[in-house]
């Protein structure tokens, strides 16, 4: 717990220093080509951009400790960082969860079929399908999906995302293509690893003895094999959390999903350091939380670990 907290503080400081090393500042970003020297000076003074870095970080950290992530100055002036995150994080989480569910569904089916039909045509198909999907750049896949399913068949909107808060059905509909573009390569990774661990478990002593004791194939698969194979599988899913949060920025751009990754990128371009830092802290919190969640699930799956 203390370690995680220290990580947060150090993380925030590192991000802060990194951002301030970037040339240009919020004044240039907010004022654009209207930025005459006097206006820039006024802007900097108003937002304390001339203060020493240590002072700036300290005032940010003090506020952050009380849960106040500050206000945007050049991304969406006056909006609180918390509001910007609250407006975009649900979209990211929705599309991420959507993609994860699709990826899990595809990989569970693909991985189990491949493992249980080991060496046969189904295995070959699933395995080669998986490795092909891993090799596709996701944003490229995104454009191809738009071309086929939106502009071709007209089944899905070509651009834009309905927030789950506005219409859940709309969110599922408009979020399908981005979720699929994210899910497909991920499903490839997950099904490959599920297949490998399943094959490994099949040969474990307790499974072999269960066979010898005459339990049914399906019973053994469900109770002995899958349960044990799920532990590395869940761990692998946990590792994807980082990607789902911030790695999908390009996909968000292609489909117009207003996610937190896009906010962070726009904020970085606008040199809105407070917002980038706020997002970074939230990212770190979520990654820490995901790790805890994964550990808990693994513990639940494996009774031996509870001790």
């Amino acid at each position: 717990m203390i370690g995680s907290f220290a990580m947060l503080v150090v993380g925030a400081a590192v991000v802060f220093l990194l951002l301030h090393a970037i040339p240009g500042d919020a004044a240039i970003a907010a004022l654009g080509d209207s930025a005459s020297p006097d206006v820039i000076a006024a802007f900097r003074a108003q937002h304390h951009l001339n203060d020493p870095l240590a002072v700036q970080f300290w005032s940010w950290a003090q506020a952050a400790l009380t849960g106040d992530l500050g206000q945007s100055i050049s991304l969406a002036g006056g909006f609180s960082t918390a509001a910007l995150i609250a407006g975009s994080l649900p979209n990211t989480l929705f599309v991420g969860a959507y993609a994860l569910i699709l990826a899990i569904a595809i990989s569970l089916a693909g991985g189990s079929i491949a493992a249980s039909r080991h060496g046969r045509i189904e295995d070959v198909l699933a395995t080669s399908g998986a490795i092909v999907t891993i090799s596709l750049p996701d944003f490229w896949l995104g454009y191809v999906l738009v071309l086929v399913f939106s502009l071709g068949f007209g089944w899905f909107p070509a651009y834009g995302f309905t927030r789950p808060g506005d219409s859940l059905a709309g969110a599922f509909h408009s979020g399908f293509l981005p979720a699929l573009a994210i899910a497909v390569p991920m499903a490839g990774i997950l099904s490959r690893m599920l297949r490998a661990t399943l094959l490994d478990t099949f040969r474990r002593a307790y499974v072999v003895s269960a066979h010898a004791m005459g339990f049914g194939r399906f019973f053994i698969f469900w109770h002995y094999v899958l349960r044990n194979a799920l532990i590395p599988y869940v761990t692998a899913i946990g590792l994807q959390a980082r990607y789902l949060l911030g790695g999908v920025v390009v996909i968000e751009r292609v489909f117009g999903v207003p996610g937190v990754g896009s906010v962070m990128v726009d904020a970085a371009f606008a040199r809105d350091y407070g917002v980038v830092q706020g997002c970074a802290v939230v990212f770190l919190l979520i990654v820490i939380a995901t790790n805890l969640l994964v550990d808990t699930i693994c513990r639940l799956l494996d009774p031996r670990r509870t001790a």
Partner: protein
Amino acid sequence: MSISRRHLLTGIAGAVATNAAPAGLGQYAYAAVANGQTLRAALTGFSVMNTLDPGKAAVNPEFFIIWGMFNTLVKFDAGMKVVGDLAESWTNPDPTTWEFRLRKGVRFHDGSEMTADDVVFTFERIADEKFGSPVRKRMATVTQVVALDPYTVRLKTDQPFAPLLSALTNTRTSTQIVCKKAVLAMGNEQYGRTPIGTGPWKLKEWRPNERLIFVAHTEYFESGLPRCGALEVPLIKDDASAINALAAGGLEFVNAVPYGESDRLQHMQGVTFSSVPGLNARFMALNIQRPPFDDVHFRRAVSMSINREAFVQAAVFGQALPSQGYIPKAIGWAYDDTPHEYAQFNPVRAKEELAKSKYGAGTEAVITGFPDAWWTRMIEVFVDMSNNVLGVKFRVELQDARTAYSRWTQNDGQAWSMGWIALCDPDEYLFDCFHSTGWRNFSKYNNPALDKLLEQARQELDREAKGGPLYKQAERLIADDCPSVFLMNTFSNSAVLAKVKGFEHTPYDGFGAQLAPMSIS
């Protein structure tokens, strides 16, 4: 009354039609507005806007929105002539005094009436140093603003200032009239997020980085406008995606069509494509303080090595006019179309000038630009052409737009691929950028003859007859020295679904200002 009832009826009919449109964009606003059509107009190429307070606004996307929410004293019509907006008429009792007679019964979004008091407040706010408006310096020439009565305002300037009227139009001027009561009640910062104006569209919700949602201002002073009951503006960074959404029926209007898509959209079923010469200048700004562009012969050589007709075809697929100066064709009275020697493609003369310069073939230079869609093309084609003709070794260096621009303002670098967008007065183009005291004159170009000419033009209240020739002459003086390589004046290309009626294209890409008369049939 009868108008609004008819409006309501067509609105209901239209709502059924809107309902059938594919989901995604616009679903939400439709659900929220039961009594009218929702116009979905995409703002493309941008995803960030920082404020909707006219006095504070600085970058284009902010103004694009502000134009639909506010009005100014006067405005440009589609032919770039100044006509009344909130002011019905105006007079010059003497060259430094301007009297504006205001419209009566104009209502702000909060229902209060707009009077001379609000106008005075708007200008005093801009002049307040503490407020920090980007146009404070520019408006500093206005020394006094008084309300003679609730519907008459008098502006006094320190000297005759002909460009004043342009600075009062509904363009990138920051002189949009704000609501005094609302500003004082909520404070400047809050007002930037929830502004109250007199314009046809009333802000309902601003979702940063995503979209803005508006409802019609039912008490708008131009009767029958706006024709749609609601407006939704998604911010689409990638303009190719916006065209996809338009083609799939998820949008009614796209303000900036990517140049590469223009010819395809001209022939697309169900889409009306519209193109006018825009209010902009695209050029390579040169650092005249540093080698190699400190040598006028070298600059001329580079300028003459560019075949601007071919350049326009290659860089923007023909969607521009070749240019030889800053002032765009849309400002017809100041636009100079007599060919200037150094702006004409002439490889032989170019090499002669190169021979006269301190630098020869093989000279290296870095051209800084930024990687936004066709901007990269512009710089790549430029480098390709001058390298081929002169045998010089120019190289492209891309940085993010803010870094590149801020380096230009500090004169840090050798050359920059740049453009001015939506500046509406010749004085803004020439005085600000090339007068020795101009604040956009980053490379410190100094030409006393030009300074005199531009100062004289500011005093000339009869702009078309007397100011025009001065600006044309100034452009020729600048072109002699080539402090920038002027390249082109791009078209403003918009696309609107054919079922949308009432679209009138303004040269200044007047996004928000064009939406009120649009209706969906």
